[in-house]
């Protein structure tokens, strides 16, 4: 549990005729993390990596075209329909099918756009004609007359007189047909020879000409009825075409998944190494699932050769993918670890430690039975996934439940319920009444956590066989001894004689380990046989080493004291809760509704605002004080083949 899953590297030599079946099995089982072997062998004939790459590219091309068509239809690929893994579609079959669907979808889409455009045009005409429906004049008047120029349109009512004035010098008729605000429908008529003057005047008076349907002849009322009937027909046509579209949706989705599956299988095959008659396949899978997987491979053919090498911690850990398989609450806390870094194969996975220490630190800082129960309820609400928009916070809900329970536990130890400390006696102590005591306890807790972190660091250094760092680095044995001797000396200073170890021994161990830490670089090089022992001049090295030691010691002190905040927040939480009740009492007695309004708002503020701050502080302590001592991360993600 303290490590990521044990992995085994597997190499397969598969007779060429079983290559496809093996590719299907690898995708179906969803446990095989494939290594690209295609560059190791140079076969370029049929069934070679190059050949499969080309096929994968062809499938990818079809897939993209189908996706574009789906976008045109406004649909998503959805979930994979059933299990169609066994099929590798023939290009000569799926290509024409894609062509046909693409053509029909395009035709449908064009036709739909055309109908929609005509509908919009109709709406525009109707809007204009509705404004002049009472005009009993057949439009257009004398459309092709050689001598008469006639213009109908809407002009701002305030512009009419000015338009009339501008046309005073020519013979023409400006006739308002339907008065309105802010525009009036007018007819402007004159001699054809004055057309340009009339047009300029109309344009400069902001006369927007009436745009009529082509070939229109009749009164606006007649045309309005015709256009409304046409609009109904167009709407009916849009409905029919939308229904037709639905039938294409199923076809196109089905074809998409067939092509998509073929593309993934072809990609898998393109990463196989190809000899003349065999495929050479390499990859990783969890050790636990190895024997079952071997059986399934042998089920395809007894001729498949399987070579397995279990990845030991330490030696060959560099390229090993890291599989995490935490479940339940551990899976929820795994996301917090991944937020920091992915564990490396050669180091301890801190998920379980985080699952234990995070709620303890949170609960200590936010210890209150009432507030904790509210957090539990909020967590249950999120984890239950009953509210659609909050579904993605289900894992956060689990973390909140655990933290809430820790708050309830510490609330019991502190004797606090919604800030009231007189409901029952504290099972341990009341933070507000024992401030110094609680701060000392939290620093002691911090020392224990940091010691644990240094011990874990020792373990990680040991399994990764970094001998020099194990003995001499600030995170190694010398660092741990120095830290403990400093702690011991500090304890002895404030409580002389409390430790069973004499002061002189602590001092001696402290000096020796300080020297080791100070010269850790040279000593590491010496032990590991690396030369030169130091880079640059001796004097520079000593000055640099001294300041590094100084920084290390300061780091030990500041890291330990950093945990004081746990106690400080416990006190602050109790204080803040008390303030809420003081404010409530200022508003009125407990019979006064204002009292309860202040109490409820104050409690919400504490849970929301202080809860957020405490979460940030807890994360800070975990990431920067605890993880940084032993957890490097940088693992390779385990990505098994699968069709999705």
């Amino acid at each position, binding site marked *: 549990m303290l490590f990521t899953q044990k992995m085994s590297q597997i190499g397969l030599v598969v007779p060429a005729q079983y290559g496809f079946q093996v590719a299907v099995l690898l995708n179906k089982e969803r446990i095989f993390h494939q290594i690209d072997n295609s560059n190791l062998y140079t076969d370029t004939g049929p069934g070679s990596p190059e050949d499969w790459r080309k096929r994968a590219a062809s499938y990818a091309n079809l897939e993209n075209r189908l996706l574009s068509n789906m976008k045109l239809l406004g649909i998503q690929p959805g979930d994979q329909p059933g299990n169609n893994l066994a099929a590798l579609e023939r290009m000569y079959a799926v290509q024409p099918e894609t062509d046909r669907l693409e053509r029909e979808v395009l035709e449908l889409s064009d036709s739909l756009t055309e109908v929609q455009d005509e509908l919009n045009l109709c709406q525009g005409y109707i809007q204009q004609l509705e404004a002049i429906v009472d005009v009993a004049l057949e439009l257009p008047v004398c459309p092709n007359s050689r001598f008469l120029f006639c213009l109908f349109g*809407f002009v*701002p009512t*305030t*512009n009419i*007189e*000015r*338009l009339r*004035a*501008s*046309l005073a*010098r020519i013979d023409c008729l400006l006739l308002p047909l339907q008065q309105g605000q*802010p*525009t009036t429908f007018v007819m402007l008529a004159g001699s054809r020879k004055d057309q340009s*003057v009339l047009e*300029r*005047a109309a*344009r*400069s*008076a*902001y006369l*927007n000409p009436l745009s009529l349907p082509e070939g229109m002849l009749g009164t606006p009322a007649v045309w309005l009825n015709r256009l409304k009937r046409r609009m109904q027909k167009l709407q009916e046509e849009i409905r029919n075409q939308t229904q037709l579209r639905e039938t294409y949706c199923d076809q196109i989705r089905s074809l998409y998944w067939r092509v998509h599956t073929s593309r993934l299988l072809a990609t898998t095959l393109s990463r196989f190494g190809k000899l003349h008659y065999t495929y050479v396949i390499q990859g990783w899978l969890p050790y636990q699932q190895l024997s079952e997987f071997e059986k399934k491979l042998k089920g395809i053919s007894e001729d498949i050769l399987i070579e397995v090498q279990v990845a030991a911690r330490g030696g060959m850990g560099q390229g090993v993918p890291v599989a995490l398989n935490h479940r339940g609450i551990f899976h929820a806390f795994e996301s917090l670890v991944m937020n920091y870094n992915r564990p490396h194969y050669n180091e301890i996975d801190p998920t379980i430690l985080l699952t234990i220490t995070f709620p303890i630190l949170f609960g200590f800082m936010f210890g209150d039975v009432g507030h904790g129960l509210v957090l539990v309820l909020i967590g249950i609400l999120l984890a239950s996934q009953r509210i659609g928009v909050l579904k993605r916070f289900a894992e956060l809900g689990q973390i909140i439940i655990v933290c809430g329970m820790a708050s309830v536990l510490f609330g019991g130890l502190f004797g606090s319920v919604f800030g009231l400390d007189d409901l029952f006696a504290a099972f341990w102590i009341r933070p507000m009444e024992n401030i110094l005591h609680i701060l000392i306890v939290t620093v002691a807790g911090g020392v224990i956590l940091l010691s644990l972190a240094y011990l874990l660091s020792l373990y990680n250094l040991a399994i990764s066989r970094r001998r020099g760092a194990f003995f001499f680095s600030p995170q190694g044995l010398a660092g741990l001894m120095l830290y403990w001797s400093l702690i011991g000396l500090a304890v002895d200073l404030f409580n002389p004689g409390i430790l069973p170890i004499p002061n002189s021994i602590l001092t001696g161990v402290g000096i020796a380990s300080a020297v080791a830490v100070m010269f850790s670089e040279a000593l590491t090089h010496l032990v590991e046989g690396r030369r030169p022992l130091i880079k640059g001049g001796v004097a520079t090295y000593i000055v640099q080493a001294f300041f590094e030691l100084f920084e290390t010691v300061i780091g030990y002190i500041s890291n330990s004291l950093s945990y004081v905040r746990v106690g400080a927040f416990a006190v602050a939480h109790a204080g803040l809760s008390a303030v809420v009740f003081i404010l409530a009492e200022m508003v009125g007695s407990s019979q006064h509704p204002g009292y309860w309004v202040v109490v409820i708002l104050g409690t919400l503020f504490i849970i929301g605002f202080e809860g957020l701050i405490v979460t940030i502080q807890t994360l800070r302590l975990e990431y920067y004080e605890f993880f940084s001592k032993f957890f490097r991360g940088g693992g390779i993600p385990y990505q098994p083949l699968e069709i999705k």
Partner: protein
Amino acid sequence: MYGNLLSRDDWDHLSSITDAGALIEALKGTVYGAYINRVKAEDLTTRRVEYEMHKYLADAFGVVIKHIPDHARALMIQLYRLYEVDNLKATLRGLVLRESWEQIRYTLFPYGNSTVLPAKAITESGTVEEAVALLQGTPYYHTLVHALERYEKEQNLFPLEVALDLDYWRELWRLLNRLSLSDRQPTMPMIGGLLDICNLIWALRYRIYYHLSEEEIINYTLPFGYKIHDEQIQAIAAGEDIVRIIKEACPDLPHPDELLQDPLRGLPKLELWMQQKVYEACHSAMLGYPFHFGVPLAFLLLTEYEIQDLTVLLEAASLQIPIDRYKRFRVSALPMGLTV
């Protein structure tokens, strides 16, 4: 009110300063100081100082609008809206030229909270059509929606801007004529004078610069005015002799023949002379019987001219132009005659 305007001594002192930085420092000692001092020293460009001085004017408009009697308030609000129309035009130009809000914001008049323009949203709207849609519910919406058809055909802001201007001045004239005779009489030379400047200069520009046809000039101008009448506008549109028309409309204009010999140079001078007449009318309104609407109006217009002249001063100082070269561009500095 009158005491808030810069005195002759102030003008002499400010005109003697030739360095822009020193001039800004000197302005801090005037009524504009309270506004200029709010800006960090490194942000104090001449444009920013102008912007801050306009804030003073905006506040003055706010105070006057709040305290004048109800019957005159609508006219004062409409007069103040002139700056909003200018802001709208500037914002639309910025939109078409793809300028950012940061580039545009300090070129606008600081209209304050009473503006109905979502200027930033207009700048970021992407197209003029979308910008017009944002103006729904404002007094400009119907005018612009109707003119939009021409913008879409011509891809030019000219029809939108003309439509806005005509609509604005028609409404201002309508409100002016609703005033009682006692209020209208002192107000007419000022607002009517402003309208005359616009109408005459529009007509002359359309004819001289843009060579528009008679019917276009008539449709793009107004049929009313204080001293400039529709017959004169229509005569300009019809291509009649401009000098004769100007002599008839402005009989006390000095050297009209000389002035309009080169119309391209003469038009700005004519405009300045007409502004001086309004300036003179504003001073006249301040004298005599004080209980009429013309007094606060005159104060606001004089402040506007004062800021206009201070801007000339600032720009001249920043470009190191000597006083004798820029003095003729100031409305308030000239005696009431024109040096051609």
